[in-house]
């Protein structure tokens, strides 16, 4: 038998025997960031379409909720930092090659945009500004959503994350979770149907992106193929296929089109599954990425 054995005499915490630097905080932050990104795009879209003038529209309730959820996400991110009292160092520089630095500055722009949308909702801003603010929210939401994925793909040493597709994948996942949430919150019939239909489109696109993501991995080098194996027989197989793909994508994709055509009753089940699936996706990707390596 051909022998190939490597023994590393090193036992650094969080590094050995396998990298584990990120626990629940980062997946939760990435999920909430993506959800808020989706809410900004969808809420912004409603403002652009003039729903700001409808008192019943769900777009009036989104900005405050988005601010609260984003702040929760930022709290999770802060809890993860190991050198907390230097957190302000993020804002004494702009590092052009670091997605995290981009993210820190994007977050700084996202808050005022959400506050502006909140003021529109309260009726304190001129309605003709509503359209502009809607566009701004859509643009910043897209940036925020993509950044949450690119953040991981820039970490070269983890083959699973070395795909620019993580950006669009997380954006779409954020959009589908947001559409599900907005659908749950909407009172206006037209808006309810709009977001359920939109959610179906987002989920279908997400499924396609996932397939492309895996195709990219398996058609690349040995280490990328091994990273993909984490989901095909590896330790994350059940979690990924049951929770992310099965319950989070496929089941809602079956239920929701039927609900749109009134074949089954409108319930909260499918939207809740979509939201839970979005959270599961972040956990699975963050954990799997840390398990993948070049050695």
């Amino acid at each position: 038998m051909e022998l190939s054995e490597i023994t590393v005499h090193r036992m650094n915490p969080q590094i050995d025997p396998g990298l584990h630097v990120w626990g629940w905080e980062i997946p939760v932050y990435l999920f909430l960031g993506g959800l808020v990104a989706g809410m900004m795009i969808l809420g912004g879209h409603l403002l652009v379409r003039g729903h700001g003038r409808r008192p019943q529209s769900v777009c009036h309730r989104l900005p405050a909720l988005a601010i609260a959820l984003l702040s929760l996400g930022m709290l999770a991110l802060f809890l993860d930092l190991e050198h907390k009292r230097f957190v302000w160092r993020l804002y004494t520089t702009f590092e052009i090659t670091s997605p995290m630095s981009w993210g820190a500055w994007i977050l700084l722009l996202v808050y005022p945009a959400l506050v502006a949308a909140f003021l529109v909702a309260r009726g304190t801003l001129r309605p003709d500004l509503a359209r502009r603010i809607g566009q701004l929210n859509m643009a910043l939401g897209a940036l925020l959503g993509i950044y949450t994925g690119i953040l991981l793909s820039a970490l070269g040493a983890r083959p699973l994350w070395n795909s620019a597709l993580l950006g669009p994948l997380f954006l779409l996942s954020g959009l589908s979770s947001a559409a599900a949430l907005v659908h749950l919150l909407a009172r206006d019939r037209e808006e309810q149907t709009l977001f359920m239909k939109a959610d179906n489109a987002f989920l279908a696109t997400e499924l396609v992106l996932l397939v492309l993501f895996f195709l990219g991995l398996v058609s690349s080098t040995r280490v990328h193929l091994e990273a993909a194996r984490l989901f095909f027989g590896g330790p994350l197989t059940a979690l990924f296929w049951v929770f992310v793909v099965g319950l989070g994508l496929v089941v809602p994709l079956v239920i929701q089109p039927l609900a749109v055509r009134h074949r089954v009753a409108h319930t909260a089940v499918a939207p809740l599954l979509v939201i839970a699936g979005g959270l599961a996706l972040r956990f699975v990707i963050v954990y799997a990425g840390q398990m993948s390596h070049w050695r």
Partner: protein
Amino acid sequence: MARYGMVIDTARCVGCMDCVVACKTENGVPDGYCRDWITEEARGRFPTVHLEIRSERCNHCDNPPCVTCCPTGASHVEAGLGRIVLVTHDVCIGCKACLASCPYDARFIHPEGYADKCTFCAHRIQKGEDPACVAVCPTRCMHFGDLDDPHSEVSRLLEARRNHALLPEAGTGPRIFFLT
């Protein structure tokens, strides 16, 4: 401009770990952590098994992903000191992006919260001394110097002997070479 690196002769290294102890003492590395370590790699088919013992540490890469991903600039290339890769402790927020980005797992979070790793003993090389691990090695298997200077000891060794770096395929441009 200098480009510091190391050349380590695996034909001489016996894995005594003096380099590990020297580093811990010289740099006050806390208990339970290490900036350099020994790796043993056995390959082949019995009875022709080949064992390579390596003293490993941060490779002070030419293309360091730990620097490009750092959001604060704490991880940086010290241009004035042989382009070695250093971390400024009171700029680091402990986000751990650099730990996740290093294919060699060379970094860790110091108990005080900042990212830490081998510095090539910056405080010693500034004075023209060798890093502690190099200075202490009883088999004299480690060599430190300027890879860009064709007359340096490291350049001459790389010219004369067969050698390899770790995971060159990861694209980081590692600057620690192992003579075989």
